[in-house]
């Protein structure tokens, strides 16, 4: 199918992009890699008046070292992220998850910032950003602001981004010394996660000092499994202890029931995957 007609703007600086967004109004849509947007347009599930193509904003591309953090430009593609040496060294969890996004073709065009802005609760990278306590840098007509990932995702496909704002980069604290793992469970290789679990574990000898657990597709936004995190703090790195902690995973979640799984199955699966992800991260 063919998208409905729209106007097209391709700014070459962030300032131009912000002006274009202001001018185009609420019916405009930012086109990043387009890997979620194009199918939506082709199916005529959306009718934007204007597409603002930010793919040529080179200032939004690439990964840089920023002292105690790395900063990933919003327009860095998944493929670039998963091959980036800074990511590999300081946030391998991102690379592990990015490698599971779509397929090679999708990863060549799809972007890190695009995935976060799209905020699909079945998407992998929003969960990763949330679990890593990332900070999202946003620019708008009145300047820039920073938003914690925990505040960024507000509802299904909804973020705190205003229509005239642009996500420009994502700051990821370096978490050297943590073990991490992303456990994704889907029906076929290409499909979205029924449930995904991101785990981060800092351990000392045989016990867990601190853990973080993020959940994909267990609500309308990515979620943190705070109950599991609390139960893991100070727990021993044993299958039984981790299993017991993982039983808290459904607390505070609102798992959907849809074609790929009913809520009770998702809750069960989340517990199994949490145990596996935490043990792998602690390994």
């Amino acid at each position, binding site marked *: *199918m*063919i998208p*409905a*007609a729209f106007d097209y703007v391709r700014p070459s600086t962030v300032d131009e992009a912000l002006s274009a967004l202001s001018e185009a109004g609420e019916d405009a849509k930012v086109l990043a890699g387009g890997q979620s947007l194009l199918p939506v347009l082709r*199916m*005529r599930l959306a009718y934007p008046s204007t597409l603002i193509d930010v793919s040529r904003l080179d200032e939004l591309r690439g990964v840089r070292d920023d002292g105690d953090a790395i900063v990933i430009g919003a327009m860095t593609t998944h493929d670039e992220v998963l091959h980036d040496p800074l990511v590999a060294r300081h946030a391998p969890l991102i690379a592990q998850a990015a490698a599971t996004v779509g397929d090679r073709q999708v990863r060549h065009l799809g972007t890190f910032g695009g995935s976060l802005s799209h905020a699909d609760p079945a998407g992998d990278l929003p969960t990763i950003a949330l679990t890593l306590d990332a900070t999202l840098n946003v620019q708008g007509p009145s300047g820039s602001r920073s938003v914690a990932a925990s505040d960024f995702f507000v509802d299904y496909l909804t973020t705190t981004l205003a229509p005239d704002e642009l996500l420009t980069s994502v700051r990821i604290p370096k978490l050297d010394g943590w073990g991490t793992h992303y456990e994704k*469970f889907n*029906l*076929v*290789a*290409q*499909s979205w996660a*029924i449930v995904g679990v991101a785990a981060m574990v800092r351990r000392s000898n045989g016990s867990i000092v601190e853990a973080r657990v993020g959940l994909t597709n267990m609500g309308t936004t990515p979620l943190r499994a705070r109950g599991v995190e609390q139960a893991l703090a100070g727990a021993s790195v044993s299958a039984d202890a981790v299993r017991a902690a993982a039983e808290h995973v459904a607390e505070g979640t609102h798992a959907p029931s849809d*074609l790929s*799984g*009913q809520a009770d*199955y998702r809750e*069960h*699966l989340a517990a*199994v*995957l949490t145990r596996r992800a935490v043990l792998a991260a602690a390994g």
Partner: protein
Amino acid sequence: MTATTERPTEAAEIGRARNRKEDAHLITGRTTWTDNLTLPGLLHLAILRSPMAHARITNVDVSEAAKRPGVIAAFSGQDFKDEQGTIPCAWPVTEDMVNPGHPSIAVDQVNHVGEAVAAVVARSKAEAQDALEAIDVDYEPLDPVLDMEAALADGATLVHSHIDSNKSFTWTFESGAAGTGAPIGDALRDAEITVHRRFRQQRLIPAFMEPRSTVVQPVGDGVTMWSATQVPHILRTMVALSLSIPEHKVRVIAPDVGGGFGGKLQVTPEEFLTTLVARRVGKPVKYTESRSESLLSAHHGRDQIQDITLTMTRDGTFTGLDVHLFADMGAYLRLVTPGVPILGAFMYNAIYKIPAYRLVCDGVFTTKTPTDAYRGAGRPEATFAIERIIDEAAAELGLDPMELRRKNWIKHDEFPFTTVCGLTYDSGNYEAATDRALELIGWDALHAEQAERRERKDPVQLGLGISTYTEMCGLAPSRILGALLYAAGGWEHASIRMLATGKVEVVTGSSAHGQGHETAWSQIVADQLGVPFDDVEVIHGDTQSSPKGMDTYGSRSLSVGGTAVVLAAGKVIEKARRVAAHMLEASEEDIEFADGTFSVRGAPGTGKTIQEVAFNVFAAHDLPEGMEASLDADATFDPDTFSFPHGTHLCAVDVDTETGRATIRKYVGVDDVGQVINPLIVEGQVHGGVAQGIAQALYEEAVYDADGNLTTGTLVDYLVPSAMDLPTFVTDRTVSPSTTNPLGVKGVGEAGTIASTPAVVNAIIDALRPLGVSEVPMPCTPERVWRAIQEGGAR
């Protein structure tokens, strides 16, 4: 000009793993898919489809759409109601079958989501699609009809208000009444052991990779139609019959066709609607569906409920088989919709000696997309049911499921064997195929591992599944088709033309869409005529150049169409022999033909090649008295009966009991498809078939919601497996030549699909039986497996 004297340098072509002739243009993108075609003045059709499963249409307003930029015309069903005829159903399976008729575009009622309700023809596809949004349709909703058993109940909402039931037909076979076996009533009454199960064959979507596309060009009183179809010849006849265009004014071309699997064995509403619009506007018109339109409106497959009862003696000897089928027709009857379950009806007894058999099939209308042939068409369903219930019977008897099969199957020295259905199986050796499969998979070692993992309660359990299948190929003997009330025959036609330079043109009525006929037919002709493989050109897929044929489906092409080629070649040789005798000044009886050369018996080295003979006939200076100046020959082959390939497929599955995920660890298929023309092609057919059968077992299902919407309407939700989702297959063959055709071939197109589904599901159940699981509905998704384990443990 001289005739070539090039001789084949290799040994026999038949049996040789030739790389395909077809590949050259496909791997370089020099293809002729229908959607590639453009013609001067070509217009583009877009179709507005019903969002309602069941509703009266009270008004369709296309006036605004007609004013949109680029639009030539916009139509509703009212515009064609007097001339659109009906989509044909060629298989009224019973004398009293009810066929409600099937408009190409709905006039006053829609009966499934996706049915065409309006159409726009415009200068560009984008403009046509834009204009659809300006069409207003008023619907008066009716209740959807989704469940087959509810649809048959008294007081059920009627899909078609002008007929008084949702039942299209009840078809019955009973071996006592048919005189082919014992009465089923006796078997049921006298049974020492009775095992009953209900299986569901979920609704599937063929999902050929090339979306359907049609271009229709009005030509004088007639039309030329290009279409992505498996059946250009049937399509031509049906366009003529249904749209009242004289058949000789209809030319149908199937150019490159991107897969079919039964899904393009159809005469479609889209083909008719494109024809109607093209004739109305007097311009060539193209319609190419989107994938989401394809999933919604191209016919679906399977969708049956199977109630099956197997009776046995206490020692596990089968005594009877009783089957009641509910077959979902969907909203309408398409080309062979009612015939699909009937094709399976003769296969439930499979490879087993069962003295009494009954099958009753109810064809039921629902407000869903019509069903029709999908790879295997009836036979995968039958094979699944018998292979699954045998495992259940073995469990009840405490017997090894392979031993129960061995106990009841037809032994290799009992062929030909006439079954309880009255069909005579030509040849086979179930013992040999099974033994080879067991050896290849390492059955005993896997059993030992299974026992060990059960013992230590490994959360990932190993399951071992068996499918010892047979099927009937070579659709089909016309006489049998006639007895089953099919409207047409099952013969196939071939022509061979010897050109002046000794090159050969083979015209076949069996038009391929991925099966490699050009290569296989060339191999056959190269061997028959003793000419080089590359000197043979195979012509197909255009009713002008290949006017006679019955097309490609039902694993028929080689055994029926390939045989026609052999027969035509034989006629060419006999004509050439006469000419050669004249050239060699010998009598015809003394002429031998071998390796492309005619020679006088006892005088080797003095012969004339077939190319020399061909040139001599072309020149026609000195032909035998009364001989026409042509070696060309036609042949039509109509087999007396089917052929019956068989095989044993074994599957080892790891089932993660925590998540429910079943992962195929090892898959072995040993097939006996008779003689093989090209082992490369045969292996490829098995691979692809197995993949589709595994997809039914694990991944695919067309799901409707309570309002009758197809919720698996894109490839995001209809889960066609990728390379990541399928295992490596180990394949091998045994060879029991067919006795029903001179090539000794049986057919392989559907074998893998028929074999694999029960092997996989049996393996999953085998893994979980100690956990109290005896059934997981297909597709066996992780969630369904997990739920079965929960329920099993609760028992």
